[in-house]
């Protein structure tokens, strides 16, 4: 099959790529757009390291053929904060020790972000469920749960101002 011109909005910027329609969104982001913050852990939708937001939903970008992302709004880890100006979720992961080796971190933060977009004050059980598709081999998840709770508190106090 020939290359197809695909237009999508990535981190708020309209991007045009020429790609095989079945190419994984993950590879397009990493190789064609240079957004290497999104990681590959398993390539079969089990680990969630490649999680990004597509039209507000959390997806495993290793399972999305890029054709399916045409005209979609994609948000990757690069679309949140920067080391100089962290997003509250990133800030909380850093402070609470939610990131160790860092390989699951971008996907985990996207999952946390998605959870907090839909549920501003999740319970511990809801956090466990919301992050259930993202594997972490380093932390044992406890500091990640605390980070999500801390981020929820920050968002709440910012909203109250």
């Amino acid at each position, binding site marked *: 099959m020939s290359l197809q011109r695909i237009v999508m909005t990535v981190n708020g910027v309209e991007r045009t790529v020429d790609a095989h329609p079945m190419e994984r969104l993950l590879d397009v982001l990493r190789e064609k757009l240079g957004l290497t913050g999104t990681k590959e852990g398993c390539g079969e939708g089990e680990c969630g390291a490649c999680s990004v937001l597509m039209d507000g939903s959390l997806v495993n970008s290793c399972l999305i053929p890029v054709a399916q992302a045409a005209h979609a709004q994609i948000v990757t880890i690069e679309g949140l904060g920067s080391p100089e100006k962290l997003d509250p979720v*990133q800030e909380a992961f850093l402070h609470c020790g939610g*990131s160790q080796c860092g390989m699951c*971190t971008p996907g985990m933060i996207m999952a946390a972000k998605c959870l907090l977009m839909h549920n501003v004050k999740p319970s511990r059980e809801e956090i466990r469920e919301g992050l259930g598709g993202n594997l972490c081999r380093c932390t044992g998840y406890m500091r990640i749960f605390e980070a999500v709770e801390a981020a929820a508190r920050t968002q709440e106090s910012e909203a109250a101002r």
Partner: protein
Amino acid sequence: MRKEGAAKVCGTARYIDDITLPGMLHGATVRSSIARGRIKKITFDPAIPWGEFTIVTAADIPGANCIALIQNDWPCLAAEVVNHPEEPIALLAHADKHRLGEAVAAVRVEYEPLPSVHSIAESERKDAAVWGEDNVLKSYLMEKGDVDAVWAGADFIVEGEYETGAQEHLYIENNGVIAEYSDAAGLTIYGSMQCPFYVHKSLVKLMALPEDKVRVVQVETGGAFGGKEDYPSMIAAHAALLARKAGCPVKIVYDRAEDMAATTKRHPSRTRHRTAVTKDGKLLGAEIDLVLDGGAYSTLSSTVLSRATIHAGGCYFWPNLRVRSRALATNSPPHGAFRGFGAPQSLFAIERHMDRVAAAVGLAPEELRRRNFLRPGLTTSTGQVIPEGVDLEHLLARAMELSGYKEKRQRFARENERCALKKGIGLAAFLHGAGFTGSGERRMGSVAAMDATADGMLRVLASSTEFGQGTNTILCQIAAETLGVDYGVVQMGPADTSVVPNSGPTVASRTAMVVGRLVESAAKEMQRVLTEAGLIGEQYSTEEFQRAAATYVAKHGRLRTEGHYEAPPNVFWDDELYRGEAYGAYAWAVYVAEVTVDTVDYRVAVDDFVAVQEVGRVINPVLATGQVEGGVAQAVGYALYEKVVWQKGRMANNQMTNYIIATSQDIPPIRVYFEEVPYKYGAYGAKGIGELPMDGPAPAIVNAVSHATSADFCAVPLLPEDVMTKLAQVKLRVVEVVGA
């Protein structure tokens, strides 16, 4: 705050697969499809335009065809025989990585199959001799007292056999490297790894290059757990050979299936215990027979077996003890380093056995343990005297109190009779030796350094690598605290063999304790140099120190100071007899697990977990707690979920879909508590911490499952089908008794 943390949470940290060099090719590996055999012929399917590919076989190796570790029996590429499935035979490189899969499949290897062995039992019976004459990669005999004299005086003799399975590291980042080569500049390796100098040593021999023509640089590494101790030398060797032949940089990054099938795992084990005990529960002596499955080559098995042997008696005082241990060869990929390094295997056996000894004597499990704990003045299995400050009884009391152990133990037993959901609570007490075993640290003679840049930034120079545990952070913290400057002005230098001294490999829970101490010395030395130069007084601010360092650099060209390893006094180790100070220090712990066993679907859930430990001074509470939580989670998997399914030496379930680790929904609340007893010879009183939490959860959980079900489980992983089978047997036995 974690040094490289901001880059990690923003996705700007650069791992090996995030790096592309100009003109870079991608490499792939042709691997053995059989367990053991002679290579008869390699043919290349003419349908592939081979002219576009770089092809490497063993004939292209300029130096020795081996990955240098201990015995140097591990080939880089199989030349005449293969000894395990997935053994590398040939290498391919191409500019387009999508062309490689088809090409690898188009390389046909014809074999003359040879007999193979696939379990400890088969190797022990010598169904086939697959390594040396007797399949024994290494054996030890460790004796204390006269164990043959104890049996006659024993009130009870308790025997047991315990097994543990292989475990996959499952770091989220697979193994990967990039190699660059030119005759003029030599070889440079960038990669995901724990031990840059191990890779360096191996490549010098393989590539027949002088030491200064090989440079190894660790890049951000996405988890390791021991799995990137030995294997990076292999994948780096492959990329190096391809880069040398192709004349351009070559990247090899495994996908998950290849990483799981081809790289190392935790050694499976079988341990037999025979214990003499009095009716008061005093341990008189024991014979322990311990066997590890080492896989097809010796790699690190001798050192893993050594640690397993020394830890086999657990944290108890044995007046008489004999441990016989062997690592046996089988035709699977070599088993290697994995957090705990042999100790989780032998500690699972002893801690499960202690519950069964207690039951035989008629004592509560905690009481039998309490009566036999190592205490100050008593000696370990190797004759090492326990120092003041070690207080297992206190750790036990605290863990029992925090977990509500006593009340739950009784209540669960009462309530279980009428419930389908049976609850249990179990504990494990254990120790973990920090640093290299025996004379290892002295032989290594590690060095760490500090330097200052022209603008007064201070750098820690060490080959100790960061792969999530917090090396960067704690070493900078130690340097900053010693110098009396802000943490923010101390940076970690690159883990680049051309820049940093060899501070040893990042293994064995040695970084904080041993390397931290070297950094402390290097920092003190820097302070001394600047004081003697008259650039700082007794009191100074961070800015004044930085200015002083910058002035020194401007005047002398550089400011670089070193810290050299000095063994603590009165430490002796006899490698022949296995007597003496096996480790500079031990960490101690008591863990309690609470479980529910569903007797309808036989699932086991861990409901609560209390981890109480003494690891010397805790340098960074957030990181230390994270180490314990992460270790416990990994060990919950080891106990209940993670089963490597072997088919003729090949991992059949080499996918995350089929090899199950604990998710956020499976993990109990992990409650972590530290007792702090500073260790005199560790940096700021620190001892090792990283591996300890891998040791205790499996026996604590299985003890809890046995408590819940009144059945005797002696193996991990303990899957629902194992629980079902055992409980069905128990039921059957009850029926038979009633029928009789």
